């Protein structure tokens, strides 16, 4: 229907964005009436997402003409911003910003670097930015899930953790069951995405590649590659977090800090 009304691709895109945004707002309104606390965040998140993606589109149009290395500062900026967003999810955790920065550098950074060196991500702006940003964004979600869950587990099991400490356990050992639970829970969405790939959903990058005329088989294979990269980066960042996060929860004398989860 919109195609009949708009003949310019830009206006058509804006109209499509407005339609889905209004639909999402209606759903958020219903959710708010049912007491969900996300209602207030949604209009701002939609507007922010739209502005950000338009800006990145304009920036990409500009960068596409430049050399590949111009994508490095952009990817680095994405990691720094993602770490800020993760910190906001766990503001009670001491040093949450530097922790998530380290974890995402190890996870998303390590995977993007390795895959680029292997030639799986081609070193050109139009490849590095979209694929890199997908890995970083999903890594951010996984990191938020991990730390949020870990903080919740620690607060819910203070008695067990302090009992373990009182028996002479090291802090890392005392929180080990809760690290494992957080690790598992944070990777469930990424693992489910891999498991349901092609059956339940055909993700964005594959759709994009098909729309731009790539072979469907290559598009499918590359989609698997991207999801596997997301899973690997998530696993790496969580592994890093399992080493670094316990240190933020204890004093140097192995005393559990009082941190409240939201």
């Amino acid at each position, binding site marked *: 229907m919109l195609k009949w009304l708009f003949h310019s691709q830009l206006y058509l895109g804006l109209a499509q964005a407005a339609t889905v945004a209004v639909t999402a707002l209606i759903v958020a309104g219903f959710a708010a009436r049912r007491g969900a606390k996300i209602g207030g965040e949604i209009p701002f998140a939609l507007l922010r997402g739209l502005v950000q993606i338009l800006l990145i589109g304009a920036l990409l149009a500009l960068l596409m003409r430049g050399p590949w290395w111009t994508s490095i500062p952009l990817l680095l900026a994405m990691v720094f911003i993602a770490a800020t967003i993760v910190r906001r999810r766990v503001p009670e955790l001491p040093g949450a910003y530097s922790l998530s920065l380290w974890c995402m550098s190890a996870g998303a950074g390590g995977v993007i670097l390795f895959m680029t060196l292997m030639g799986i991500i081609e070193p050109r702006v139009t490849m590095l930015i979209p694929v890199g940003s997908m890995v970083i964004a999903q890594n951010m979600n996984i990191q938020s899930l991990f730390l949020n869950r870990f903080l919740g587990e620690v607060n819910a099991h203070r*008695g*067990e953790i*302090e*009992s*373990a*400490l*009182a*028996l*002479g*356990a*090291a802090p890392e*050992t005392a929180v080990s*069951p809760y690290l494992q639970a957080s690790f598992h829970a944070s990777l469930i969405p990424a693992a489910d995405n891999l498991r349901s790939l092609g059956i339940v959903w055909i993700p964005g990058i594959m759709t994009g590649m098909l729309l731009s005329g790539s072979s469907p088989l290559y598009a499918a294979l590359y989609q698997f590659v991207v999801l596997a990269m997301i899973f690997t980066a998530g696993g790496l960042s969580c592994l890093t977090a399992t080493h670094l996060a316990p240190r933020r929860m204890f*004093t140097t*004398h*192995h*005393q*559990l800090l009082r941190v409240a989860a939201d």
Partner: protein
Amino acid sequence: MPRMDMTVLEARHLSRAHPASGGLKPLLLDVSFRLLRGQVMAVTGPSGAGKTTLLRLLNRLDEPTGGELLLHGEDSRKLDPAQLRRKIGMVMQRPYLFAGTAAGNIGYGPSQRGVILSAAQIEGLLRQVGMTGYAERDVSTLSGGEAQRISIARALANEPEVLLLDEPTSALDPESKQDIEQLLGHLVRERHATCVWVTHDLEQAARVADLALRIEAGNAVGLGTPQEMFHA
């Protein structure tokens, strides 16, 4: 054989304050006492007086903001926290057992220093707490009293020199409460363990302790024998 008149645990002006709006809020102020080998000291006082805070300082689950704690005359801060906690065991108000079997819980402390208890050693500890044959029982199936017995065996498995008991019977029904009190009294006497027993039950304190320390609003307001403290 260690001498019975040997000082095992000594607190000197032990204090803890908590950061609060407008400065530090004292939780415990200037508490001092000295315990010989085999002595049992009851710590009494109303809820929120600072009894649990004192135990947490003794086990170094919290850091004192003033004073010092000596174990066999040595400043406890010189000891590695894990090493100190093995020597000063603690039984909490609730058992907080780890998921798994009773044997897994009992073996937890020794396994932290690389010692694996044999089945016979675990059965021996279970026998001491009246739970013979429970080694492979899943702890989620235990009653409150049974779980507390396992948590006592778990603390004893480390062979602590000092045992801290944080109201170990307060969360139990009257029957279990009496059983656990008798069990602990027996174990402490049998092992000549030095013991700090937090309770708000003055009758219990009189039954089990050689010394009693009364804490009110973070201050030690009395230290003496139960007769001096409760029948004065």
